[in-house]
Every structure is written in C-alpha cells, then in structure tokens.
C-alpha cells in the first residue's frame, strides 16, 4: 500500500496513457473510426461551434452593414465595369452555347452520359480543426439542412473538399490539401489522369502519373469524376511544378484554384444528376444543312430598316462596302442569293449574335433588302454570322 501511495501519480499517468493508447489502437484498427468516437466528437462540436456561429454571424452582419451602407466608394465604377463584363459574357455565351449544342449532338451520337450539378446549398465556414495535421473546416449546415456525408464542397473558383462528418446543424469538411484526402484528377490538355492528394505540409500534388509523360507547368487540373464525389470537369487548380518522383511516377505540384486558407462561403453540392445527351430533335441532319449552318448567311432585315436607311445607317442584312477602320467584315451574301429559296444559306437565318441590337434577324426568311446603303461611318453591326440553331423556312 505504501508503494502504491508513493507512486500514485506515476501509476495514474501510466493508466491514463495506457487507456488512451488502447483507445487509439482500437480506432486505428477500425477503418470507420468516427463511429466509435462519435459521442465525444458531438460533445466537442456542440461545445465549440455555437460560439463560432455567433461570431461568424456577427462578422457577416457587420461586414454587410459596412459594405452596403457606408463603404460605397468605387461602386459606380465597379457597376460600369460589371455591365461591360456582362456584355462581353453575353457574346461569349452565344458562342459557347453553339459549341455546347454541337458537343451535345456528338454525345448523343456516342451515347454518352453526363453528370451535372443540379442543386447546391450555400454554407458559411465557421471554424477549423485548429491543427496543421487535420486540414478541415466546419460549415454551418448539417443534416437538418439535408447535408450528407461525402457530398462535394466547392466555391466559384474551384473545388474545396468533401463532407466528412455531419452533425445536426454543422458539418466537417475535409479539404483537398489534407493528407488523407484523395480526388480523381484530370489534366486539361494532356488528358492524363491521376490522384490528387494533400501533403503533410498542406500542399497539393498529383500522384500516379508516369514519369515518361510530359506535363507542362501552368496546365489546368480538373476533376475526372472517377472518385464518385466530384462531377467531371470542375476546376481544381493549376500545375506549378513538375519533378521526378519515386517509383517511376511524376511529382506534380498543384496550386488549388480556391484559396483554402481563407474560405468564407462555400457551396455544398447536394444533388448531382446524370443524364444522357438527347439527340437532336430536328431529326437527321443533311450534310448540306450542317454545312450551311457553318457558312455565312444573311441576317434578315429588321423592321426598322427603313428608318435606318432614312438616317443613313446600314440596316442589318445589307453590306457596308467600305468599312475602313473597322474589323467588321462583310460576310453577308448578296440579297439576291438570300432571296433565292434554293440556297441553303438563305434558308437558314442567323440568330442575333450580339446583345447590342444589331443584326436582329427575327424573320424566318431573308427579305430582299435594298442592295447597298452607303454607310457614313464604319458600322459595328456587320454581325459575323455564327452557326446557330436555325429556323426552318416555310416553303414559299
């Protein structure tokens, strides 16, 4: 008894350490370690996250008041800049929708299935694990909000991670730069596939790419969809450094597109749909029609063409013969050709490719317009005909 009393502290120390080591060994043995310690985690998260939520809410509210009511410097310029950006993006969107249409047709022909994000939920990042060896964050949405384990978490910039543990009103998100994380990755141009992993120091690397492949720095990295969590094609980041690794594989370092150290708001992908591309509803296309879509055609004459003629401007559908100083290229066919119902180019009418109102072909037929009107100044209008979903003419 005397010995026990004398070494009481040491005995307790050994006992406590032994119990913890035993618990640790049990958790390591079980692959689903979170289940055996779930109660402790729930208590800890329940003790810490309410205060984090309050602080996050206070910070957001203060920031909103400041930015919405007081700090409005530069808002007008920003608004102007954004409007210009919208105009540019509208043009871009028209072109991309054509590409998408074409891709969809090809996918339909090949029977491809595509995945797309059909529903997301915005969540606020309220806390972190606080440890360098556990790169994870907590968000303010849990299973009460429909969050489930293994849901993908993204931002507008790129992917962030996946939901690891779900609690009642919070969830833990494992970031892609954690060493236990793994994401199927695809290099954009070379189309090489690998596994994206985090390192102990918090960097992100792609593994399992053979060393005889060439990967240029600066190449974009996308999700491959092979992990079953992230849909294919989401931006991951950019290759920063490529070096020879061990075991005949390359060591490819990647800079994540999303700033993982300063996350504030994220999107949880709550629903991913898979669908097969639908075949073109217009039926089998003739080669000549497809070719006609790609050839320049004449936008139809707008209703206010006469007004434009009176004011000396060029009506869409006509050709400005001297467009000096402008990059507008007169690609329109002569009106005579347009009027001829036999020419494929005339049977298809180009949709407006610009949001600026020029070249607004609304009619299905290309009405013969006055041949050439003299343009006093270069006109931006000469809309470059884009291949668009064409409207079939009614037989005349």
């Amino acid at each position, binding site marked *: 008894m005397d010995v026990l009393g004398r070494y*009481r*502290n040491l005995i*307790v*120390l050994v006992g*406590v*350490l032994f119990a*913890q*080591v035993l*618990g*640790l*060994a049990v*958790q*390591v043995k079980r692959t689903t*370690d*979170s289940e055996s*310690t779930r109660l*402790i*985690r729930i*208590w*800890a*998260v329940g*003790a*810490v996250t309410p*205060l*984090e939520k309050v*602080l996050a809410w206070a910070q957001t509210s203060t920031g909103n008041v400041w930015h919405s009511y007081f700090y409005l410097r530069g808002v007008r310029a920003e608004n102007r800049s954004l409007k210009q950006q919208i105009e540019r993006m509208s043009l871009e969107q028209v072109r991309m929708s054509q590409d998408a249409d074409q891709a969809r047709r090809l996918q339909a022909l090949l029977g491809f299935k595509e995945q797309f994000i059909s529903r997301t939920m915005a969540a606020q*990042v*309220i*806390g*972190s*694990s*606080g*440890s*360098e*060896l*556990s790169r*994870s*964050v*907590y968000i303010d949405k849990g299973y009460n909000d429909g969050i489930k384990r293994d849901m993908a978490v993204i931002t507008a910039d790129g992917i962030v991670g996946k939901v*690891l*543990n779900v609690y009642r009103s919070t969830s*833990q998100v*494992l970031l892609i730069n*954690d*060493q*236990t994380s793994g994401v199927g990755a695809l290099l954009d141009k070379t189309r090489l596939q690998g596994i994206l992993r985090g*390192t*102990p*120091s918090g960097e992100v690397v792609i593994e399992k790419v053979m060393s005889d492949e060439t990967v240029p720095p600066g190449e974009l990295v996308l999700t491959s969809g092979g992990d079953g969590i992230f849909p294919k094609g989401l931006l991951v980041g950019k290759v920063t450094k490529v070096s020879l690794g061990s075991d005949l594989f390359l060591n490819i370092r990647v800079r994540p597109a999303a700033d993982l*150290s*300063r*996350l504030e708001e994220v999107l949880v992908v709550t629903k991913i749909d898979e669908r097969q591309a639908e075949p073109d509803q217009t039926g089998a296309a003739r080669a000549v029609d497809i070719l006609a879509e790609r050839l320049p055609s004449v936008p139809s004459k707008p209703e206010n063409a006469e007004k434009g003629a009176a004011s000396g401007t060029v009506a869409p559908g006509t050709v400005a013969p001297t467009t000096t100083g402008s990059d507008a290229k007169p690609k329109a066919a002569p009106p005579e050709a347009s009027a001829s119902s036999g020419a494929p180019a005339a049977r298809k009418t180009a949709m407006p490719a610009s949001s600026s109102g020029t070249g607004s072909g609304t009619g299905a037929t290309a009405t013969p317009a006055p041949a050439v009107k003299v343009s006093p100044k270069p006109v931006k209008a000469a809309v470059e005909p884009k291949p668009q979903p064409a409207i079939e003419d009614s037989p005349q």
Partner: protein
Amino acid sequence: MAITYTSGEQVEVYRFSIPATVLIPLGAVFLQAWLPLRFPFFTIFDLPLLVVIGFATARRSPLAGLLTGGLIGILQDALTHQPIGLYGISKTVVGFGASSLGIKLDVEHAGARFLLTIFFYVVHEVVYFMIARGLVGLRMAWSWPHEFLSGVANALLGVLVFMLLDRVKQRT
C-alpha cells in the same frame, strides 16, 4: 535566469475557480479553431497547450496536471478528423511533466516560463510525432528549425497567456 531549485515547502500552490477551469480551456480550444480562419499563420500556435502548461505549473499537482492535459487534448482531438488520443496523450505527458517540474522549479518569472514553454512544446511535438507516425501511420516530416521557431513563437505567446492566468488563479 530565474530558474531556481526550490523545496516542496517553498513553492506556492494555486487553484482555479470552477468557471475558470471550464471556460479557459474551452475558450483556448475555441480560439485555436476559429482564429486560423482569419489569420492562417495562427496554426503554428497551440493555445490549448499553453493553457495546459499554465494550469499545471500553477497547480503543481501531477494528478491534476495530467488529467487536465488529457481532457483538453481529447477535446482538441475531437475537432479534428484524426483518431482521438493524439493530442490527448501528448498533453497528458506535458501536463504531468509541467506540474512535476513546477514543484521543483520556481516558474513565476517570465524568463523561466519562456524556457519552460519551449521545452514542453518540443516534448509535446516529439510525443505527437511518435504516436502519429508509429501508431496511426500518418505521413509526417520532422524539421528541427520549424519546431524550434514554433517553440519560440509559442513561448512568447505563452508568457502573455501565463500573465493572464495569473490574474484568475487563487492562492490556496
């Protein structure tokens, strides 16, 4: 330097009120989880470890030290996705060591606290590294310069934390 060997009768033993005993560790764990979001460099600090050392050296009871360290460590573990026990074991060892050393040494001066914190920070990291690599199988890299610099940074913060703890501790 003000590290002096003292007899058991000379050292003063302090205690903390129940609210302080509960709220200070909880606050430390909370700040450790919240501050890195706003200040990413804060991950080099280990605020709960500083609280463990502060409590242990003030109470000077190895039993209380190891239990406090173990509980704070487990709380910290629970917020990570790693198995529970990594921080628990490390902080149990530190709590026991700091309180045992607190009996022998006079740790009321800032210089002594500074050195003590560096020492126990390194001890904590070594224990953590051994368990994480040996038992859990985590990939980890050991870097003496990094550990030493982190130890100094923690020690500087520790001096401030101990001054705050001095205000709430009560003489028995």
